[in-house]
């Protein structure tokens, strides 16, 4: 030997893995922007959906057109005004005036009492009331009139007595799982699904592609480090972060949005873990086929977020879609996780109810891991 050299020790995988995970963690912690996206996005989305993007229509202004006020009409108007859905805005004297309130946007609903309302109600056993809504926003209009109709019906039954019969057609509506029609926590499983899909896939793919861009990937591949360690070392930090996101979402749901307790949380965490592994593998697949961080981000955002949103069933009911789209929805992992998460979180169902989506999701995860590994191998040679 021309030179005396220290023999390299057999490099232990555990040590490399540790060095890699440490490096990755430092990178994530130092990159404020990524960190904000990773931990801030769930909070922002939860707050947005929880408070700003509510399906409920609250505090709608209404006006009353009552030419002959009496005990019943005043009582009913008070009752509507007391509800959290409505705010009393004033009295009007003509239908033309209602129109001008609507045009100014100062009222959404007008309640019109005929003369003799109290008399008709007590002596004839029925009376008429007219609800006029500003239907320039049809959804809001129908929601608002539904609220008002419900309040009127309730008022009727409270009046009670034999001289007041309920309306000719009695419609009983029962809202399953969400009796108060509160939407503030209904979106939690959906938001959780979207956040995990987005962050899991985007963060992994971007962080791997960044190594390609900077050339550090080449150096890692030339090193004696097993590619498997590289992949695991990339996946583990993001897995942990995604789990932290799940905990943040749960904390906000129970602490702030009054999500009813009773869900099987260990089961939910286990299923989340499965879904996170699926999204990380998807990120890995993306990172193997694209070369630039921007592309990776774009593919994750547009290529994943849109289908996830459309086909998960979170915003648009899958049953209402044309058949081809329903078929497509079957291959979208978010559909299955959304089903799992809402069954556990909203309906408080156990594992027996989610065996099928779990198996499908597990199958998809294995498939994604296989594809990720294959594309990774191909890129090496």
């Amino acid at each position: 030997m021309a030179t005396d050299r220290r023999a390299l020790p057999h490099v232990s995988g555990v040590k490399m893995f540790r060095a890699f995970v440490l490096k990755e963690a430092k990178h994530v912690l130092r990159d404020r922007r990524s960190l904000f996206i990773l931990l801030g996005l769930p909070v922002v989305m939860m707050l947005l959906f929880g408070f700003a993007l509510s399906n409920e229509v609250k505090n709608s202004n209404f006006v009353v057109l009552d030419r002959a006020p009496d005990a019943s009409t005043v009582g009913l108007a008070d009752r509507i005004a007391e509800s959290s859905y409505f705010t009393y805005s004033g009295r009007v004297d003509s239908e033309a005036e209602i129109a001008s309130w609507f045009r100014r946007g100062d009222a959404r609903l007008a309640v019109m009492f005929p003369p003799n309302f109290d008399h008709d109600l007590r002596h004839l056993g029925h009376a008429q009331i007219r609800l006029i809504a500003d239907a320039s926003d049809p959804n809001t209009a129908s929601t608002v009139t539904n609220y008002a109709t419900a309040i009127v019906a309730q008022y009727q039954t409270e009046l009670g007595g034999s001289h007041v019969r309920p309306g000719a057609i009695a419609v009983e509506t029962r809202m399953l799982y969400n009796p108060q029609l509160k939407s503030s926590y209904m979106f939690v499983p959906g938001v959780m699904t979207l956040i995990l899909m987005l962050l899991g896939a985007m963060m992994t793919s971007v962080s791997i592609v960044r190594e390609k861009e900077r050339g550090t990937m080449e150096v890692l591949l030339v090193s004696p480090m097993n590619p498997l360690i590289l992949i695991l070392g990339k996946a583990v930090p993001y897995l942990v972060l995604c789990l932290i996101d799940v905990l943040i979402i749960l904390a906000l749901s129970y602490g702030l949005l009054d999500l009813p307790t009773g869900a099987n949380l260990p089961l939910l965490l286990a299923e989340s873990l499965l879904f996170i592994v699926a999204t990380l593998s998807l990120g890995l697949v993306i990172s193997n086929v694209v070369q630039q961080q921007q592309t990776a981000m774009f593919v994750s955002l547009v290529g994943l977020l849109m289908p996830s949103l459309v086909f998960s069933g979170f915003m648009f009911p899958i049953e209402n879609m044309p058949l081809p789209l329903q078929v497509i929805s079957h291959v979208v992992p978010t559909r299955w996780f959304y089903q799992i998460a809402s069954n556990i979180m909203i309906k408080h169902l156990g594992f027996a109810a989610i065996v099928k989506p779990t198996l499908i999701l597990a199958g998809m995860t294995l498939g994604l891991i296989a594809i990720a590994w294959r594309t990774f191998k191909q890129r090496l040679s």
Partner: protein
Amino acid sequence: MTEWVIEAENLTRRFGDFTAVNAINLQVAAGEIFGFLGANGAGKTTAMRIFCGLLEPTSGRATVAGFDAMTQAEQIKRQIGYMSQKFSLYGKLTVKQNIRFFAGIYGLSGQQVKHKTTEIVERLGLATAADKLVDDLPLGWKQRISFAVATVHQPKVVFLDEPTGGVDPIVRRQFWDMIFEAASRGMTVFVTTHYMDEAEYCDRVSIMVDGSVAAIGKPADLCAEHGVANVDELFVALARKATRHGD
């Protein structure tokens, strides 16, 4: 007898119909600075990837540090260092953290990592910058840190892929001082470059044209043999014969 650290024997690599490396033969001795020259697309990168254990040869043989590139790629990886033209470091880590990380993936013990980190910081005069993020350092520093990191595990051979791209002549000269110093400690340096003045610093060079080695030997000998004044002219004379074009 000379100890050959890199040997290629009829080394060939094909991608489909395209023969990127066509039956090349070369030998590099221990402690030698070997310049691996060639135009873009001449097959340099492919050959280098085979030596680094990243690609398998289609036919022929390559050994690096005594291990076969076809069957013992993993052993080769433990014996070599590699520095890419991008000075690949982690920009969001400090200098020290980069050194520690790369030492870690080469399996150095905690004690060795500590010792090496101090040594490199001292040797490169980086005391003031050791805890700065690599992104905040000038290019020339990154380049030298990158070299130090590539040799942190004292490899038998270090492969440098266009290590001086984009830096000014003074910094390039400083960088070559590092290379000379490493070679004087017995490290074999296998370097590709586009700067022909750098080729003159090499003990021996080879010039690849269209996947084959068109010339190999000491720079001065080659120039004399081809009747040219310097490696630059030699390179142009040989590369002009190329029929295929790089990217």
